[in-house]
């Protein structure tokens, strides 16, 4: 029967459009890998006239790549730590209790990521200008931690909603105080969700460029280094090598976050 839509397979056209769409999402990134091996360093000629692995060595020895890499790692680490503390706290407060202003607070948490990065960046830039704060690592961290809070919050609040309140009461009945309950009951149950949130936050911060260009001043994070190379290229394949590094540093935590939380209704990464 034709009308039995649900159990019937998809039409060929739909299948091609769906699979084609997925391929469209993934294939461009493969080119980054290909071009890291090309011998042509002045243009983006396709197909590459020849292949070489020399650019990995060249990139390794380029002194201008290491300081931005360290700065990016440092900023991402500090921002993730701050976001994990603040995000978990606000998730703990929002998960169980209803109070006045709850809706407004949830809007406030989402706003930094819902509004375009240019607005967050320009707002911070305006504030630094008014308060005459000089650019430093901390001005970058200020922006990053702000938009990372929502990532940790989303993961933590989903897990807390699923957690039964009974285990906390049981812990109290067995004589544990609030801190012992947190240490031995709450944190082990939240662990993987927090880790997943932290990893996504790290990936987001490591890769962020729009807000960072407003809050970094003369400092250069790895994405800012890449952006400069895109605007004024030199040794183009080296940029590809760095792009592969950036891709790997964001890809691995995202995949881990997925495996840490998969199978629940709270799979990490469903929204950015």
């Amino acid at each position, binding site marked *: 029967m034709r009308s039995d839509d649900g159990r019937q397979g998809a039409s060929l056209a739909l299948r091609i459009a769906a699979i084609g769409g997925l391929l469209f999402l993934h294939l461009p990134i493969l080119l980054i890998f290909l071009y890291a091996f090309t011998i042509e360093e002045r243009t983006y000629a396709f197909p590459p006239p020849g292949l070489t692995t020399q650019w990995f060595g060249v990139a390794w020895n380029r002194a201008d790549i290491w300081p931005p890499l360290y700065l990016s790692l440092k900023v991402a680490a500090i921002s993730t730590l701050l976001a994990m503390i603040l995000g978990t706290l606000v998730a703990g407060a929002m998960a169980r209790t209803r109070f006045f202003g709850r809706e407004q607070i949830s809007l406030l948490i989402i706003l930094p990521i819902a509004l375009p990065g240019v607005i967050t960046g*320009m707002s911070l830039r305006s504030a630094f200008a008014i308060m005459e704060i000089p650019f430093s690592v901390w001005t970058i961290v200020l922006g990053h931690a702000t938009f990372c809070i929502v990532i940790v919050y989303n993961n933590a609040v989903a897990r807390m909603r699923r957690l039964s309140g009974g285990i906390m009461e049981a812990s109290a009945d067995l004589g544990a105080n609030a801190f012992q309950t947190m240490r031995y009951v709450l944190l082990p149950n939240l662990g993987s969700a927090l880790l997943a949130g932290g990893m996504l936050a790290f990936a987001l911060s490591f890769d962020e460029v729009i807000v960072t260009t407003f809050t970094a001043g003369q400092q250069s994070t790895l994405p800012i280094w890449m952006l400069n190379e895109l605007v004024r290229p030199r040794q183009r394949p080296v940029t590809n090598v760095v792009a592969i590094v950036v891709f790997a540093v964001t890809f691995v935590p995202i995949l881990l976050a997925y495996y840490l939380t998969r199978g629940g209704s709270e799979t990490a990464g469903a929204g950015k």
Partner: protein
Amino acid sequence: MSAVLAERGLGDRLTGLFWRRPNLLLLLMIAPPLIWLGLVYLGSLAALLLQSFYYIDEFSGVVVPEFTLKTYVELFRAQNLDIIFRTLLMSASVTLGCALLAFPIAYYAARYARGPWKAAFYLGVMLPLWSSYLVKVYAWKLILAKEGIIGWAAGVTGTTPILDAVLGLPFIGGNSLSTSFLGTWMVFVYVWLPYMILPMQAALERVPLSMLEASADLGASHGQTFRTVILPLAMPGVIAGSIFTFSLTMGDYIIPQIIGTSARFIGQAVYQLQGTAGNIPLAAAFAVVPIVIMLIYLHLAKRAGAFDAL
């Protein structure tokens, strides 16, 4: 025998206090994040608004912290209005492109994908969503360059005249794809596509199968069921996705800077004005434009029921 356990120290005493006053614990937990978001984020937004009411002294180039509407008068000059309209036009066409491309993927994932395919579709959308923004943009610079893969493919398949004809079109065309509005549009659609797929898929998954059966029982063809049942029920998801694609396009300045013409978008104007030009008040006024547009957009989306799909 005492029913009350002996207190073992500060931890126990605090536990008792939190038990008697649950609001105290709530306050202690919510205060640090609220202070952070309130000071850093809302404070900065307030600073942005404040800056936009300052003006820059034309002779000295110094920001004068006095309330004025001068900067907004400047914002509404013809050349700046051009930038705003160009950005809005791009945001709207990117949103449309994303919706058309996303629909088959979301529909297939919601209705037909099962078991491992379901997971594959989820990962297949989530990984590009989260993977590095700059890497994605860079990949498209390689693709769209004159000597890049599209030009090569056109040469191999003998379709170079078609490519040249497309590039010859007024307004959207250009010297090569990487220096045309068409190229900018393609990259925007690619980068924001996952943001459209996910809410669309969520909305489609909520369409009950029984409704489709009822529609078929009442004699509707597949096309009629699609137009009158599936599409209206998927609309909140489309609108939710469009919030992201519209807002992200409107605020982006990296993509048009790397792939596109020299004509500027709002994000580029903000970036250049605060940087090289040093005109922070006008940059701030420019940044207020997307905020106002998004507030209107969100208001309309809320009335269309899009927030239930988020």
